[in-house]
């Protein structure tokens, strides 16, 4: 379907359609056909505009990390264009894409850009958080990747009933099967980068967890805007009342996944209620929780070394 050009760019069969992208498309079928065959041009256009935006806002650097970042955001823009465009027919595809991009970049603070998020661990966290905004699977498993909570712990933390706890197990399952890998691919983290992260977590878990602890507020303050405006931070008393009266389930999931301070407060309180007495803390996990895995929470073995031979998690056949 594609062939490499000498300058490194890829030539696709659909590239011949690029001239038609400036012309009016009159039917949905025509739009679908044209878009399917012109995806490289559309992606390059969206990536180019993202680069321009980054340059104009003094956020650009000539390195592969920035190139990947621009590609990732360009991809997200084109994905929306592909889905939304059918409803806009008749239209000129390039014009429509440009207007969509302009509208996106005219939002306040449209991209989560921070220099320290360009490191492998930063990109990993950013990928997870940006996916969690649109995927409940990613959202639920944030508790695992950030704090090492298994399904059972998440259910206990969020105070869910039977029906909702089944959903949590499904979320973990889907994330394990495809969600995590897709997110890593779309974030642009290569296998070797993930391996390096895994090694660092194995050798210097405290250092890496400290780094995560430092970057979390940057991430969460950006992505927390994705929750409804009536979801502010609550006092300890209000959280207690919310759990006691058993309401606001959506609130619990969204806010606690994206607010470290509230999470620590609620987890500490609910952990104390469960007579465990150990304080919750940041405990990074790179890979998704394996099937049948149950974690020993809040122990002295931070780092989630569950993928190596020295893994800290106890394995059980009883859980999903």
């Amino acid at each position, binding site marked *: 379907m*594609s062939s*490499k050009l000498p300058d*490194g*760019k*890829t030539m*696709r069969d659909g590239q011949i359609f690029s001239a038609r992208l400036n012309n009016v498309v009159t039917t949905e079928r025509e739009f*679908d056909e044209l878009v*399917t065959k012109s*995806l*490289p041009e559309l*992606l390059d256009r969206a990536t180019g505009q993202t680069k321009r935006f980054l340059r104009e806002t003094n956020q650009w650097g000539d390195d*592969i990390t920035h*190139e*990947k970042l621009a*590609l*990732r955001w360009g*991809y997200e823009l*084109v*994905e*929306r264009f*592909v*889905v*939304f465009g059918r*409803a*806009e027919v008749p239209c000129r595809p390039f014009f429509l894409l440009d*207007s*969509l991009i302009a*509208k996106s970049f005219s*939002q306040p603070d449209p991209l989560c850009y921070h220099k320290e998020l360009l490191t492998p661990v930063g990109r990993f966290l950013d990928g997870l958080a940006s*996916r969690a*905004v*649109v*995927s*409940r*699977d*990613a959202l639920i498993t944030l508790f695992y990747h950030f704090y090492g909570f298994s399904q059972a712990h998440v259910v206990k933390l969020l105070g869910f009933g039977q*029906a909702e706890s089944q959903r949590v197990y499904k*979320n973990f399952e*889907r994330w394990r099967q*495809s*969600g995590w890998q*897709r997110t890593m*691919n*779309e974030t*642009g983290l*290569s296998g070797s980068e993930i391996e390096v992260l895994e090694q660092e977590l194995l050798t210097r878990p405290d250092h890496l967890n400290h780094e995560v602890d430092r970057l979390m507020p940057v991430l969460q303050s950006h992505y927390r*805007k*994705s*929750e*409804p405006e009536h979801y502010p931070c609550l006092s300890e008393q209000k959280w207690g009342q919310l759990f006691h*009266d*058993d*309401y*606001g389930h*959506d609130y619990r999931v*969204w806010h606690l996944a994206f607010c470290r301070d509230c999470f620590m407060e609620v987890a500490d309180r609910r952990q104390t209620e469960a007579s465990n007495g150990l304080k919750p803390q940041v405990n990074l996990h790179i890979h998704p929780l394996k099937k049948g895995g149950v974690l020993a929470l809040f122990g002295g073995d931070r780092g989630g070394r569950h993928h190596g031979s020295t893994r800290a998690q106890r394995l059980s056949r009883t859980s999903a």
Partner: protein
Amino acid sequence: MEAPELNDYREHLLDALDDQPRRATEERPGLLQVLVNHERVGMLDCAHTDPSFAFTARERSIQHLEIRSESGVLIGGCVAPEAGHKDVRIPVGKGAATIHVENHFDGGSLQVQYETAPRWWAHLAAAMGLPSETSKPAASATPIWTMTTAFAQIVLAVGVVALLAERVPSWMGSDDRAHQLEEELAARQSTQEQVDRVHQQLAQLVEAQAAAVAISRSEQERIAQLNNLVDTVTLAQQKLNTQVVTVQEDLQTVKTGVAQEVQNGIRVAVSTVEAERELVRQDLQSIKSVNETLIKQVALLESRNRELHARLALTSLEVAKANAAPKSTVLAKNDTAKDAAVSTPVADGLRETDRQAFMFWVAFQDGTTEKSIEDLVQELNGIKKGPMKSGWYSVEVNLPKPEPPDRFLESVKRAKIVKSVVTSKAMPPAQ
């Protein structure tokens, strides 16, 4: 090293874009996430009896709308104009979601309605001219489900009976085995379908019940929030009242303090003025007494001066007499009496010429005794002329020639008991 990695990444993203429509189509309708302007605003449960979702934005219009599956796959959406409306219909699994966006410049509203694909019996019913299930109102859904469940149970029972009826002969070994197997399989499939359908309907029933409970809970939450709000307002009002009372008390305290301070200040100032006035009075009295002493001394000195004048006059007369005595012895002795008679008027004449009579009118202070008046008149070597007339005494004194009357009157005026003095030439003033 970097370019191939970047190309790989780009290729991967292109493949993901290529694959997107397939992924969206394969998504089974379940819980759909609704995102407005890249913010998640709620979920649409397609398995609900009334699968619809409504949202109202108050500050910004609804410009981007995304419908995503629970795993985050973008299923559909649209870009709506800042003001105006937009209607979109997107396929979701076998069904479709109808989106209606109504925007104005400071907000907008969204309505998403999921419609399931009509099932095979609906087509059958339509072909038979019966009313379809979807055309019935949503309110009657629960009885329909109940009836359907009962019907399914009956079908299930019939199926089981039929199965048993077919099985029994086979156990007896009287029928054709292959035919039985085929029928058995068909019956089992049919039963399984019925069971699945019943399960599905039961699940829908449970979800409907859960939704009703959720609505009830949300209402309770709202009531609780309202109660909290009322409590907060009451508390705030009580606090306000307490603060008002406190402020009034503070004002009263401040007023009292200020009044006391002013009174103290006035009292101190008055006492200071009184003390200063007393000092001034004492100073005045001391000055007055010194003045009186000086007047007395001046009067005494004047009287001595007068005496000295008188003595001088007498002495000069005696000196004159002494000078005239040798001459008179030389003259005739018979003239002695005459000379003596003549010399006496000369001496008297000299005294008369040396002194002058001076009359003036004097008024004394109230309460001055007669004795004091007499003492003063004597001190002045004067004579009271006549009785007191309208508070005025006429006094005549013999002043030595060199002393002018004005100076004498000034000395009289300085006497403590004298109120006023006028000369004899003037008429005594009427009292």
